């Protein structure tokens, strides 16, 4: 039977196609020849006959949503600090000197003197001037310019306090903050200490300090913020004050500034509080029992110790967590990213450690499947989570997961079995991971459950 394709074309008697496959090579060859012929012809057709191009007709319009600044210098157009340009050396950025900034919002450019030893970083979104304090990458300082009142002084100060796990200040306390003359206005000066949880609440750094200036004005607001480990910040207060005082609009200023010719620092006392600074600690203590400078002086570790003491003599803990150590477990050395490490079983073949991450830590399933990847075990699905054993841990419900080593495991040899306890807290994720030889790990299952149940988060 003929196919529809094989019917004749009108009255033209065309040969039928007996076997498409038999004729295919001819079509392949024909297609290739056509492609090559076209390919050979194309470059010649597409090549410009001349290097001179006639421009299209112009059009006149009013750009909406854009403000063109005519005469913008090359350094600003290319987004590079004027020091790199004027100083003739890229190395000048780290050595201190004069800098400048500009933005496309039409705000006048600023100039400054980078404190000696500080490392200037490229400007970034919401960071018009950007530094590592004293070359310590844990400590940052940056200047932010926002349009309008940026939500107001109270909202911005309390955003900073939230980042330090501190309770918000009331309007009266905000109004009582000391004021310093800065950039032609009166800026609120703050100095807070607390437990740093980062911009997004996904960090957990105890004993941090934030020193800042907030100049909130109806048309444009500027914020200068220095944050980092309290000891680093404490040493750099004078440098911060000097940096703050050095910001100016560039009028009458030559870019030959050296640290020696830099403007004199603001008169801030060594402790960072201006002479007329109110007792913030007293304010905070009146309004909130935790996160006060007093508490910060002892560090969050003191809070952890207090919580541990309140929980009982057999309770151990650190700044973030308290727990009870199961019998037979030996505490191991502290390691980064771990709250605590234990060893158990014969020859300490079983290792157990606790991790506390900010935010969701990627989520329950993602973390379990990360472990699956390490062990070479098949990945789980949401449905696989349903039958998992539940356990009460850190004031919420956690799950116990058991993963056996499979092909393609990347975990070190000897980690044949993994028992894990995981729970998601409102702002953090808590993981307990127990690994080792299968029999030894299995023998610690009850201890793991007891350990997980004993975990409490220090608030």
């Amino acid at each position, binding site marked *: 039977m003929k196919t529809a394709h094989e019917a004749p074309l009108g009255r033209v008697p*065309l040969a039928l196609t007996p076997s498409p496959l038999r004729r295919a090579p001819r079509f392949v060859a024909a297609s290739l020849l056509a492609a090559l012929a076209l390919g050979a012809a194309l470059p010649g057709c597409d090549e410009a006959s001349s290097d001179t191009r006639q421009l299209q007709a112009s059009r006149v319009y009013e750009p909406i949503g854009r403000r063109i600044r005519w005469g913008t210098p090359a350094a600003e157009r290319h987004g590079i600090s004027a020091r790199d340009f004027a100083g003739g050396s890229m190395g000048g950025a780290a050595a201190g000197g004069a800098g400048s900034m500009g933005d496309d919002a039409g705000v006048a450019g600023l100039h400054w003197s980078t404190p000696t030893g500080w490392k200037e970083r490229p400007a970034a979104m919401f960071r018009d001037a950007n530094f590592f304090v004293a070359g310590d990458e844990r400590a940052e300082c940056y200047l932010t310019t926002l349009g309008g009142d940026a939500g107001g002084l109270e909202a911005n100060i309390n955003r900073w306090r939230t980042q330090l796990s501190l309770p918000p200040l009331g309007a009266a306390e905000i109004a009582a903050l000391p004021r310093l003359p800065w950039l032609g206005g009166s800026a609120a000066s703050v100095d807070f200490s607390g437990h740093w949880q980062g911009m997004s609440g996904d960090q957990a750094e105890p004993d941090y300090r934030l020193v800042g200036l907030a100049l909130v004005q109806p048309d444009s607001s500027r914020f200068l913020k220095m944050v980092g480990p309290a000891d680093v910040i404490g040493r750099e207060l004078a440098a911060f004050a000097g940096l703050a005082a050095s910001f100016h609009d560039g009028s009458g200023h030559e870019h030959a500034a050296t640290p020696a010719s830099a403007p004199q620092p603001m008169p801030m006392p060594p402790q960072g509080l201006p002479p007329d600074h109110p007792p913030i600690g007293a304010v905070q203590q009146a309004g909130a029992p935790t996160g006060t400078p007093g508490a910060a002086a002892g560090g969050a570790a003191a809070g952890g110790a207090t919580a541990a003491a309140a929980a009982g003599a057999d309770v151990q803990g650190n700044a973030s967590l308290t727990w009870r150590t199961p019998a037979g477990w030996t505490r191991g050395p502290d390691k980064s990213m771990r709250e605590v490490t234990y060893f158990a079983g014969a020859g300490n073949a079983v290792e157990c450690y606790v991790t506390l991450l900010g935010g969701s830590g990627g989520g329950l399933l993602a973390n379990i499947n990360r472990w699956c990847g390490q062990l070479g075990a098949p990945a789980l699905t949401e449905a696989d989570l349903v039958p998992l054993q539940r356990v009460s841990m850190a004031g919420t419900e956690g799950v116990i997961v058991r993963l056996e080593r499979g092909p393609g495991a990347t975990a070190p040899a000897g980690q044949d079995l993994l028992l894990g306890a995981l729970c998601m807290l409102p702002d953090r994720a808590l993981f307990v991971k127990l690994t080792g030889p299968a029999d030894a790990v299995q023998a610690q299952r009850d201890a793991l459950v007891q350990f997980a149940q004993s975990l409490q988060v220090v608030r």
Partner: protein
Amino acid sequence: MAMRLIHRVIDVLSSIGLSCTLLIFLALLTWLGTLEQVNTGLFEVQKKYFESLYVIHHVGPVGIPLPGAMLVMAVLFVNLILGGIVRIRKGAATAGIMVTHVGILLLLAAGYVKAYHAVDGHTTLYEGQASNTFDSYNRWEVAIIEKLDGGRVRETVAPQEDFERHEDLAPAQLVSDELPFTVELWYYAPNARVLPKGPMAKTNMPVIEGFFIDPLPIEMQHEQNVAAVCVAVTDKAGGKRQESILYGLSRQPWSFEVGDKTWGLELRREQYEMPFTVALDDFTKEDYPRLNMPKAFSSDVTVLADGSKRPVKISMNEPLRKDGLVLYQASWGPSNARPGDPLFSTLAVVRNPADQYPLYACIVIAVGLVLHFSRKLGKHIRSQAQKTP
């Protein structure tokens, strides 16, 4: 003799053998292009394998010539018309097949229109901002801007083809009777950064205003490439020459004076004008509980056109369609925004005259298949009924 040759050509072009060959080539190109995408990225693969008439596919050091997908689909279009519609036996038995062929032709036509007559890009707005233009993801242009009174500008644009081949010292010259100067562009780098020339910086590139272009490898994500080019303007009257570097990330144009007027030159993503203005009133992002992962995000915009205002909500599956443009909610940022930070909304803008063709084509194909198989089914039922004693 001539008729015989014509018949022979028609025979080849209308045969089902050619159909099979072309479909095999399409499958092969899709497979090879997918593999190549791992190394070169989507944009380059699309250009090389699917928007080309021929392609040289390299297997190690050996280059294998293949027809490009554009050529294959063009020939397939002819094949379908000749074989599937002209040559096919007309009758009730083939009605469904003919309709299906028409649907496939419509699909191919949609691809052609999309390839040659559609533009896509994005407009990115913070709350309170408005725009009447959108930017290409991949293409660059050089704009010559004349400052006029009242915040207006006169703009002359050179497309990427005018300067992209001039990656060395031979400049591309742009001329226009409307301009009192000529423009030269050279050392075009499709992906680069612009660095200040310090005493320790070594470069063979021209140093202009203390800066030089540092070419970078092409990014696989093509939209991440940022172009740069050297530029010089020469006054037609006095012959004065001024030079600078144009960089794709520059926020402001290079300004220069010719005569008594101020001019600007900038390298930017190719820009398209919209026949209306979109103002972002409110951007809403809803996260999954206890996760930083967005569950949904939407933009409340005001569309301003012809003196009228119209509020519209653009969400992930609810685009705005107006004047031949479709505005989709594409993304938001900055991705590292802190709580309370202002967010921007990115609206993908597509002008594709054939954006509904695939839908129509699928309907036509579905109708054709239903016709064909309904008839087959009816025939089968009748034959079974006849067999039943």
